[in-house]
């Protein structure tokens, strides 16, 4: 029986003028799996996520979500796929002019036909999952960085997506909050059986979250495999790349 792939990226190529950001990148993500993508700043990690949801268009290559191509389709068709994908932005991207409740209800009102009571229940339920029930009527400006990340995560899961894309979920957070967010990602994954693609620099986050990992260098995949081999590899680039993170992770452990 053929394995059920949630996401498949084939030979993706993307460049900005002369700078090649993604060069022949391919990956497969099975249902319920957590994949972590590492890479230096500017190595194309975020560009990869943006290509998957159609915010950027690659020069060549293919992207399939549950077997359906994400490229070369109409905007309506793309939006149908987008409804099944959640995206956690690096800066949370909460809507400044709306309260937490309005932020959470926003996709529900526009994309689904829930009654106001059902919406209220969903909002309460996701806020409970991220342990921020009291923040419902607060404005994003009143929240700390970690709280914003949690609310953004709540907004991502409220539509019950099949795949969640995380763009640097722990960047800018203190180590304790970063660990909490990483654990929350795992808990939600187990709870909702959602598939995750996490782009991060944070080895601790990756060790908590990842089933397997990919490392990007100069737009190409330098390593693909499980997390344990990644941190014990003899590859000079990977050793250098992870040296600080490994030390920090060992200290944390």
């Amino acid at each position, binding site marked *: 029986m053929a394995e059920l792939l949630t996401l498949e990226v084939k030979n993706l190529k993307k460049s900005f003028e002369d700078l090649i950001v993604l060069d022949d990148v391919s990956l497969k993500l099975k249902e319920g799996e957590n994949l972590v993508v590492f890479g230096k700043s500017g190595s194309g990690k975020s560009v990869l996520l943006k290509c998957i949801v159609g915010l950027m268009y690659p020069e060549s290559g293919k992207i399939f979500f549950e077997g359906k191509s994400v490229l070369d389709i109409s905007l309506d068709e793309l939006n149908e796929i987008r409804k099944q994908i959640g995206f956690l932005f690096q*800066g949370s991207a909460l809507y400044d002019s709306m309260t937490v409740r309005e932020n959470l209800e926003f996709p529900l009102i*526009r994309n689904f036909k829930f009654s106001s009571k059902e919406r209220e229940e969903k909002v309460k339920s996701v806020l409970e999952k991220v342990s921020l029930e009291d923040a419902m009527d607060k404005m994003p400006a009143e929240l700390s960085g970690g709280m914003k990340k949690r609310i953004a995560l709540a907004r991502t899961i409220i539509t019950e997506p099949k795949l969640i894309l995380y763009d640097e979920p722990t960047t800018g957070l203190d180590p304790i909050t970063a660990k909490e967010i990483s654990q929350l990602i795992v808990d939600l994954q187990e709870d909702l059986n959602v598939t995750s693609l996490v782009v991060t620099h944070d080895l601790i986050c990756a060790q908590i979250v990842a089933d397997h990992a990919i490392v990007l260098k100069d737009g190409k995949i330098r390593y693909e495999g499980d997390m344990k081999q990644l941190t014990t590899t003899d590859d000079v680039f990977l050793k250098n790349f992870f040296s600080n993170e490994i030390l920090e992770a060992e200290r944390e452990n």
Partner: protein
Amino acid sequence: MEIIKQKYNPVAFSKALTQFFETMAGLSLFSIKFFQNVFVPPYEFGEVKKHMDELGVKTMPIVTVTGFIIGLVLTMQSQPVLARFGAESFLPSMVSLSVVRELGPVITALIFAGRVSSGIGAELGSMRVTEQIDAMEVSAINPYRFLVVTRILACTLILPILTLYVDFLSVVGAFLAIVLSMGMNFDLYVNEVFSSLQFSDIIPGIAKTFFFGFIVGAVGSYKGYTASNGTVGVGKASTSSVVTASLLILLVDMVLVKVTVWLWPSY
């Protein structure tokens, strides 16, 4: 000679000219998109109403003061000139016609551009650089329809109302100046104003404010929606919104006055 050469730099001039035409082309395509989206459901009436409330309230204090002062100052400046020609009795008619036909719509639109266009540019620009617009897009929500169409529509609908308000206040301001200088009574003043004003004076004056409102909303939204380079880009979007919107208002006003005269030669 050297200074003139430095000031007149053909490369910089051609770059600025290219940039201007690029902005105009981008703005035109952006405006066309408005008409492609405005009649397509879901309609965001709540958002339009919210923006109309905000924009109207935001601009109300400054247009109140401006409207009153325009009428007052215009009368104070014109009275000695008309007196020189023995035409003081035409003062109420002259002031009301000037205000209703030209000064009211254009000055209100310029103030509106300064107050609102920059605000929209900054707000949408900040949403762009903090990925809030991208977040809407990946949630399968059309950010153009939710953020831009509602703002342009609100600007287009609120500016004519503000202009009528300014016109009224200017006429009141003019009355105050006339009472102080000539001692004209209220009934005579009202009679003079309304006998000289016709619908053909009021309608084109108000009609063009729909265009001005559209310009303010479209320019502010375009500059904000296409902002880049972080907070610097947001600042640029805000400033250039006011400059571009004000310039376009004056250019379009010139064209609309010509069109009005061409359509109604008696105007």
